[in-house]
């Protein structure tokens, strides 16, 4: 029996930490601290999008059509199943269905905020994300620093107290954490050299949220050992996505990947461009150029370690948020890759905090909905009529210019972080070379 529990313990917190009492205690402390912060935020804040997500889920349950949401079919399925479970356990949620099925977005938002049990509802809605977040925190420890429990603990701490993660998942309440979890599973499988599983799971991640597609080429390049591998894995990658696409097509009669290409997400990749000749059609999409540059530089690394793969993931997502237009929740995609790099280069951690502070200013881009209305569950009337941050800035200075100054600083910081990771890559490759030499000696 003891052996069985020891095995479970090792499985959850990794063997290195489980076998070291001191590390285990420290991990428990971090876990409790992180849980406390998460619970404090759970009932009181949300951004309008979580309501839309659950409104689609409610409509799915009402119409009994799992393939209702055309854009994010898998995400909608997860939320629909979860809503079905919580409404079965807590019948009080049924009272809320009239609000969730209300078509007018403003009326549904007001009614949701004014409902007496909004704190319960928000907590229940967000617990789904908490589950995936807890999954992520135990997965991420396994990514690096094998046989280094102290560094594993650092990774755990950096994840659990990451301000961007806490903001996006628990204050903003966006569902990106589900796709992040899937991506982390795919990466861990890649570390364990489970090539096809890794690519297959990443394909599911892509169907959940478009962003994992950015690391698909990296993953293929990392996993491929021979020329044959490149072909098979690329095909697996594509077939994985195609399988998800076909499955959804046959079951629900709808495409799941193609609509994503038509959404804003893809447009954002192309939003920053150089016009080669004014008035002509010739342009260079800056992110696409930078992306190809990053992928090629990864391609030409002879010995691709898993740490390098993670660093390149961080570079890609940092380049994305640095160069392109993004929504606040997209910054979450940088976090899983950065927390590993924080251990090797602490300055990145401080820059990540700076990114978070700047992000709080950049939020002003999206107006009341993502600033004062996030606090509306506490008292919606108060936060509707409270003078917003944009009019206050506009009173003294052009608000667009003001935000764009901070947006530019954000870009500068993000690109500097890319440079720091590039330096870290050189160090990692140097260590790799030294290890090889020592091995030969």
């Amino acid at each position, binding site marked *: 029996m003891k052996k069985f529990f020891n095995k479970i313990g090792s499985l959850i917190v990794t063997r290195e930490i489980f076998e070291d009492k001191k590390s285990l205690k420290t991990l428990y402390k971090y876990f409790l601290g992180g849980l406390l912060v998460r*619970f404090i935020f759970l009932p009181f804040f949300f951004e309008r999008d979580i309501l839309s997500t659950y409104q689609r889920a409610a409509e799915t349950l009402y119409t009994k059509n799992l393939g209702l949401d055309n854009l994010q079919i898998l995400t909608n399925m997860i939320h629909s199943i979860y809503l079905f479970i919580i409404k079965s356990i807590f019948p009080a949620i049924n009272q809320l269905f009239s609000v969730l099925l209300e078509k007018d977005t403003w009326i549904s938002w007001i009614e949701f905020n004014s409902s007496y049990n909004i704190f319960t509802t928000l907590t229940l809605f967000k617990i789904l994300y908490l589950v995936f977040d807890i999954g992520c925190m135990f997965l991420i420890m396994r990514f690096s620093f094998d046989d280094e429990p102290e560094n594993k603990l650092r990774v755990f701490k950096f994840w659990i107290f990451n301000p961007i993660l806490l903001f996006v998942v628990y204050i903003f309440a966006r569902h990106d954490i589900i796709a992040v979890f899937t991506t982390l599973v795919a990466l861990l499988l890649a570390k364990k050299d489970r090539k096809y599983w890794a690519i297959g799971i990443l394909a599911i991640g892509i169907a959940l949220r478009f962003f994992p597609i950015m690391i698909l080429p990296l993953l293929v390049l990392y996993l491929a050992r021979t020329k044959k591998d490149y072909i098979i894995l690329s095909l697996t990658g594509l077939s994985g996505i195609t399988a998800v696409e076909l499955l959804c097509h046959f079951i629900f009669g709808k495409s799941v990947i193609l609509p994503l290409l038509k959404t804003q997400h893809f447009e954002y990749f192309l939003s920053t461009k150089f016009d080669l000749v004014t008035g002509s059609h010739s342009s260079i999409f800056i992110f696409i150029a930078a992306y190809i540059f990053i992928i090629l530089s990864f391609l030409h690394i002879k010995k691709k370690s898993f740490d390098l793969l993670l660093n390149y993931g961080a570079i890609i997502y940092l380049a994305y948020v640095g160069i392109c237009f993004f929504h606040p929740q997209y910054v979450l995609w940088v976090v899983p890759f950065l927390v590993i790099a924080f251990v090797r280069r602490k300055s990145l951690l401080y820059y990540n905090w700076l990114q978070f502070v700047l992000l709080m200013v950049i939020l002003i881009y999206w107006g009341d909905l993502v600033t004062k209305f996030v606090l509306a569950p506490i*008292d919606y009337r108060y936060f509707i009529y409270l003078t917003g941050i944009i009019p206050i800035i506009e009173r003294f200075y052009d608000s667009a210019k003001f935000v764009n100054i901070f947006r530019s600083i954000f870009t500068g910081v993000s690109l500097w972080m890319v440079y720091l990771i590039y330096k870290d890559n050189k160090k990692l490759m140097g260590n790799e070379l030294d290890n090889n030499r020592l091995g030969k000696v």
Partner: protein
Amino acid sequence: MTGKTFKIKIIILVSLLVLISLLLAGCTGIFYIPGASYGYYIWEENNSIFIEWSVDKKDTEFNGVISTDGKITAYKLKNWEEGDDIIEVGEDRIEFSAALSSQDYSDGFIFTPQDYTYLEFDLEINNGYELSRVNVGGFLENPKDDVFRIGKDYFSQLEMKPWYRKHPFSEFFYKLSANKYFTFLYLFILGIIIIEILRVTVIARRKRKIMWVMISYAVLIIIEICIYFILRFLTG
């Protein structure tokens, strides 16, 4: 005290002061930012009534009538633009019409009524009624009717209104109280987490560990009971 601890304390203190000043700013009702805040702001000071209005740099018309069963003995204009803004002051009635724009952030006037039992307000924004934008004596102290009256002691009574009966606290406490099973469960979970943190940190260094844990849980239960009564008191 180390330098680092001192710095942290200073940061916490400054943050708290900023937070408190922000909360107070939102609650007094007379605080508004000309050219950013939107609505009418009415308050009393030294037996004079202040009426000011502001909008977030958009072309907006403010017009209305104030009447009383007493006498208006004095009035004074504030930021008034001759020509664009009109005011007619009678013995017991003031009628005004003023426009704000991207250059004109706020207007207002002060008048002194005497021997009155009520003041009647008929205030319009862009020739319509927006009662949620009429703040009488405090932020979100809105009238219920388009044309509304306030008694002589309205402002002094409002001053006596405790903070927990004002927005946003009133609504927040109402929701916590109306959903008390959630509130108690939520606080209990938070309490368990805090006790666990204490158990593995502070209590772990003490001798009678079990006793301290039991005391912690007893304190948690007492806190829960206290919160029940506090919420009952706050929500009346």
